[in-house]
């Protein structure tokens, strides 16, 4: 076990992948000499050379589009989109090309592309630097979408994503980059918990609380606070956003009878809606109350002095838990 930051854990996972497979190639803006704006790729170009760790011109569609061509040629490109809000110029290449190439070619061409995206807010950045665009991609067939919430998973899942023959969007919760944790670098990533699986973090009996990425820590803190009030919350780290491991969520809800989902992205059409609907379909007769969503608002990501109002906080999550439990809450007395 080595204690390291989240960012360092991803770096270590990338290094392992570069060492293990000469076809792995990293590309992105500023990832070489600078080591990325968050230093996630620090030192990799120095050790693996400019042909394995490629500083590209500033053109997001080209970063993804050339990765498609490299994948055609048998490479396994790992590309960095510098910030969440910069992924939109690459949207067409991701949803029309990366996602569909395997289907289009009837399985002849594989797209083992990993797209790393630092995402989410809470770091006091200007606009375009704090978004949560995951739902655009979970809606797109052909893509796998994952996120991580702790350094060990960060280390393991990045390697699993690179090993995957399907394209993977790997969302990195940037406000957790400096969190530290123990990482077992000797872990066998092929036998570790697969990237498609959710994980029950804390067991509980009253409410199932589903979170992912940056909000997992907040959700755990909420569970700890709730325990002081005698409420037992089962926290699930979703890990995979597409597909969602519904078996794990379903088993939990069958036990607790109540579901709260939280994410930073806006509510409408978000992943929380999908989880709530799917769980309602699957275990309607086990639910004691309607599923509750605690999410960001349906607003453009706000300026930093008010972003804490937008981001689900421990207290907002607990208020949502109260709603699921039918306890007095901020919406008590409100019809509908």
């Amino acid at each position, binding site marked *: 076990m080595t204690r390291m930051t989240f960012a360092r854990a991803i770096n270590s996972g990338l290094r392992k992948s570069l060492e293990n497979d000469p076809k792995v190639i990293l590309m992105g803006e500023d990832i070489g000499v600078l080591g990325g704006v968050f230093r996630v790729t620090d030192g990799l170009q120095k050790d693996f050379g400019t042909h394995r760790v490629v500083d590209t011109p500033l053109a997001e569609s080209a970063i993804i*589009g050339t990765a498609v*061509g490299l994948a*055609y040629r048998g490479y396994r490109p790992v590309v960095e989109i510098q910030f969440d809000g910069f992924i939109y110029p690459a949207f067409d290449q991701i949803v029309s090309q990366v996602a569909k190439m395997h289907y289009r070619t*009837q399985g*002849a061409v594989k797209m083992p592309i990993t797209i790393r995206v630092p995402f989410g807010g809470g770091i006091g950045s200007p606009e375009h630097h704090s978004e949560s665009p995951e739902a655009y991609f979970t809606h797109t067939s052909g893509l796998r979408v994952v996120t991580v919430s702790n350094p060990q998973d960060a280390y393991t899942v990045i390697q699993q994503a690179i090993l995957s023959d399907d394209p993977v969007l790997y969302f990195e919760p940037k406000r957790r980059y400096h969190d530290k944790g123990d990482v077992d670098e000797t872990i066998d990533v092929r036998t570790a918990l697969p990237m498609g699986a959710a994980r029950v973090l804390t067991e509980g009996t009253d409410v199932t609380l589903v979170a992912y990425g940056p909000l997992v820590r907040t959700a755990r803190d909420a569970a700890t606070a709730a325990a002081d009030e005698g409420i037992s919350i089962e926290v699930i780290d979703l890990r995979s956003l597409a597909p969602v491991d519904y078996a794990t969520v379903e088993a939990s809800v069958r036990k607790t009878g109540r579901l709260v989902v939280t994410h930073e992205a806006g509510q409408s059409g978000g992943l929380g809606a999908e989880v709530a609907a799917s769980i309602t379909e699957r275990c309607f007769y086990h639910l004691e109350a309607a599923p509750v969503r605690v999410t960001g608002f349906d607003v453009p990501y706000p300026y930093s002095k008010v972003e804490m109002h937008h981001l689900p906080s421990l207290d907002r999550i607990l208020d949502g838990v109260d709603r699921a439990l039918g306890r007095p809450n901020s919406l008590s007395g409100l019809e509908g």
Partner: protein
Amino acid sequence: MSTDETGQGGTRAGAPAGSAGTQGASGRNLIQLITPEGERISHPEFDPWVKDIGDEQLCSLYEDLTAVRRIDVEATALQRQGELGLWPPLLGQEAAQVGSARSLRQDDFIFSSYRENGVAYCRGVDLTDILRVWRGNGSSGWDPYSVNMATPQIIIGAQTLHATGYAMGIQNDGADSVAVTYFGDGATSEGDVNEAMVFAASFQVPLVFFCSNNHWAISEPVRLQSHVQLADRAAGFGIPSLRVDGNDVLAVMAATRLAVDRARHGGGPTFIEAVTYRMGPHTTADDPTRYRDANELEDWAAKDPIDRVKALLDRKGLLTGQFQQHVKDKADAVARELRAGCIAMPEPEPLDVFKNVYSAPNSWLDRQQDHYARYLASFGDPAGATSQEGAR
């Protein structure tokens, strides 16, 4: 004639003559080796690139051009007869496609648009496979690795980036093959094509940008796309360019061979503008009489890419009755095979819709497939299961 030989002599509507709206003012002459009248003219710079093309090769090119046109005409007919959902005709662009495709090695890799069916023919793509997508019987026609040609791209210009990435891979591998990407004049307005040129120049990859300037992006004329000759755009990216008569199969070969040779030997990318003309509609769903002057069509008919090779062969005394019969028989055989293959394509199975979305299982999709299979099975009659309307 509304477009001169540079193809871009028109003045943008509303723009004063002589302003930036006038294109081709600084225009280069087209590289040409065969005149529209079928006269072989000498070109000191480009003759050496085709010096090996003797009578036999010229006859072979004529045969290819004729076969490609026959494929196009037959496919258009198949569409009109309801056998294909759609077809994008390449009528008039045979020389640009055959001349360039015949200049490549089999280990070179092509990323094209949907109109390069003549290129696909030259690569050896099975005739039935060429039609598969247009009949709606598959997401793609062929395995790209079997012919080293990606399946045609529908999104305008997207394939230029794939070719650039592939060429980066060739460079990394230390191989001496090249990537070639085909796109139209309309695509040059797309961001992806411009980003591809940035990347290709920055990394000096072995790539040929082959722009078929057929003058029309559906109803939008090339003068709406560019205030300069398309070939001139490349200079801004630091990419050398060639401007070739796209209806002259020999000139297209010479230009492509030069560009491919440069790429193969570490000289980086080249941009080729092949000036040609889309004689037919954009697709069989289009009506060009709404936006195109009939006189323009007539002008271009006089520059037909096949007629001029035929005239050249005639001048050389090679157009014997026996040879003409051979070419006709070949084209007839190709058309017969195309039609038979089209009609004989097996119908896909309902659950094929779920195939190949992912390489590995996906729990969401597996569940949907399982549910749909149960739904189909609920009809009891496997034949009835495929008929989803009025079955209950």
